[in-house]
């Protein structure tokens, strides 16, 4: 399948020019041809063919009166539960775990007719920014296979970028949808916290996690998000349309650029692509002003307290007793300690220990308490900023995709997320789409721009994103 959009597929299905079976066969053929090298997928679902046959029939009978994703091949990050499918979170501790129920978003996507062709690779338990932390080997960037696809939803990004599927679902705790979208030249969306149910997602940072789409157009991202969003009785943090004040759509917007934040550590070429984007916005009649976001700038430090704290709590459930890897030992404590020692990878252990530290008696107030306070003040700072500007603009990541094995130091890896993690801490929505390419060693590498909206402003981001990206790409 050539790189395509859901809108194009859907039109061809309805017109009878192309069938779901052809689309699924094309997806499986691309995977067969390319995935030996790319390794975007952990599992490929051959039973997608049966669903495709049923979809063929339904189009013959009902044409356009069919669900909006009928026959569209999609891929799921492997931390999203789909009943009867192996769901590993790319960890040895869940290597043979089979999901016993569907996540709410999976149920909604299947009800909308989507056909899941496979599960995508990721950093173990979504911890990482390169997909190198997968227990089952890294994914390579289809744009340049010497480079990482980003992470943690790197397999999902690579699956779309290599043309296997037009849509892959990822999860985003600190940038894990947007940063791979930037590295692979795609659209990626992190919704307002609570817009999408987390029921059936393997929890990493429960106050931060959201699921969202990786696609080739903003219109597709909106279509897929609209199917997944909505209140869910199984997730008490899901929001309604009136949880936040209405965020109006406008003809022209005021964009705020935290210029001070860009002064340090951003590649010169990324900055010039970003400045060109700003000029294009001005030429289109928008206003772009500089803003100060001093707390937003410190988001990364607060994030590396809050997130590991939640990680250490959420991952306590993997104990070798009820499911997953269980290593024999003389006593119960030994089973816990050995199962977790053998089951978890380096980065996961690092974060669990860090989280245990910041939550431990004597340190809780100094770290976790302070980080939550920073978070609260950051929300305030953003609320005040959104009284002056409609959208905050940053590069999605400070650099284009880096090379496999290049970032050995954990802090260097974490710094790739300086622009994305504050968004999760504040719970606001953000959209990333390509703003151009930068040349490195003879390759044109894509770089993304990040549009950050106020709480509940998801539709504003789609609306402006379609105008700026979809009509000009």
């Amino acid at each position, binding site marked *: 399948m050539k790189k395509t959009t859901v809108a194009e597929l859907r039109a061809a299905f309805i017109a009878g020019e192309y069938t779901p079976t052809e689309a699924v066969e094309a997806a499986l053929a691309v995977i067969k041809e390319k995935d030996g090298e790319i390794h975007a997928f952990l599992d490929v679902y051959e039973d997608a063919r049966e669903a495709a046959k049923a979809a063929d029939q339904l189009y013959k009978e009902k044409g356009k009166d069919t669900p909006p994703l009928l026959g569209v091949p999609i891929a799921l990050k492997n931390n999203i539960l789909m009943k009867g499918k192996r769901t590993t979170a790319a960890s040895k501790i869940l290597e043979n*775990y*089979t999901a*016993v*129920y569907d996540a709410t978003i999976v149920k909604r996507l299947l009800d909308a007719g989507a056909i899941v062709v496979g599960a995508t690779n990721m950093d173990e338990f979504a911890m990482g920014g390169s997909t190198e932390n997968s227990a089952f080997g890294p994914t390579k960037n289809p744009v340049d296979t010497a480079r990482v696809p980003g992470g943690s939803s790197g397999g999902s990004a690579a699956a779309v970028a290599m043309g296997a599927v037009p849509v892959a679902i990822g999860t985003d705790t600190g940038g894990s949808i947007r940063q791979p979208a930037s590295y692979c030249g795609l659209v990626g969306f992190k919704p307002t*916290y*609570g817009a999408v149910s987390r029921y059936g997602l393997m929890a990493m940072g429960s*106050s931060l996690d959201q699921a969202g789409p990786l696609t080739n157009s903003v219109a597709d991202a909106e279509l897929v998000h609209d199917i997944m969003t909505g209140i869910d*009785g199984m997730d*008490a*943090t899901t*929001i309604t349309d009136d*949880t936040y004040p209405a965020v109006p759509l406008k003809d022209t917007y005021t964009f705020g650029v935290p210029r001070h934040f860009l002064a340090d550590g951003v590649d010169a070429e990324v900055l010039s692509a970003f400045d060109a984007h700003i000029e294009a916005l001005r030429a289109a009649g928008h206003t772009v002003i500089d803003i100060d976001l001093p*707390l937003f700038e*410190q988001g990364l*430090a*607060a994030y*590396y*307290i809050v997130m590991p704290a939640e990680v*250490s709590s959420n991952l306590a459930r993997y*104990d*070798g*007793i*009820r*499911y*997953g890897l*269980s290593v024999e030992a003389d*006593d*119960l*404590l030994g*089973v*816990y*300690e*050995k199962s*977790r*020692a053998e089951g*978890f990878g*380096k980065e996961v*252990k*690092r974060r*669990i*220990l*860090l989280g*245990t*530290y*910041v939550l*431990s008696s004597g340190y809780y107030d*100094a*770290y976790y*308490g*302070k*980080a*939550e*306070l*920073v978070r*609260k*003040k950051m929300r305030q700072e953003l609320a005040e900023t959104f009284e002056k500007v409609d959208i905050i603009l940053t590069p999605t990541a400070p650099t284009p995709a880096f090379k496999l094995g290049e970032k050995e130091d*954990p*802090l260097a890896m974490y710094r790739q997320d300086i622009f994305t993690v504050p968004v999760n801490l504040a*719970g606001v929505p953000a959209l990333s789409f390509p703003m151009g390419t930068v040349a490195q060693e003879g390759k044109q590498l894509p770089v993304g721009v990040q549009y950050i909206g106020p*709480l509940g402003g998801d539709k504003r981001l789609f609306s402006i994103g379609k105008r700026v990206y979809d009509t000009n790409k």
Partner: protein
Amino acid sequence: MNREEITHLATLARIRLGEEELVNLEKELSSIVEYVSVVSEIAADDASAAPKVGARFNIFRKDEVTNQGDQYTKDILAEMPKTEGRYLAVKKILEIGD
């Protein structure tokens, strides 16, 4: 952060660590903790940590049975490392007399 502290954290977190892991973690965790300590300066001027709640709170739903009996039992049992009939088998945790 010293070795003793890390060993203690590992016990709390129920993870057995090897010698090489201990050496690496000592270095890595120290530098990460140093990096994140900046939050204590940022928030220093505001000691009033108000109670934190999300946008929505106290969300309740009806306490009603949504599943059929045994709907998931077989699948969940199949994931267990060790079972006896319909039960999860675990190690003895209490030793009573001899």
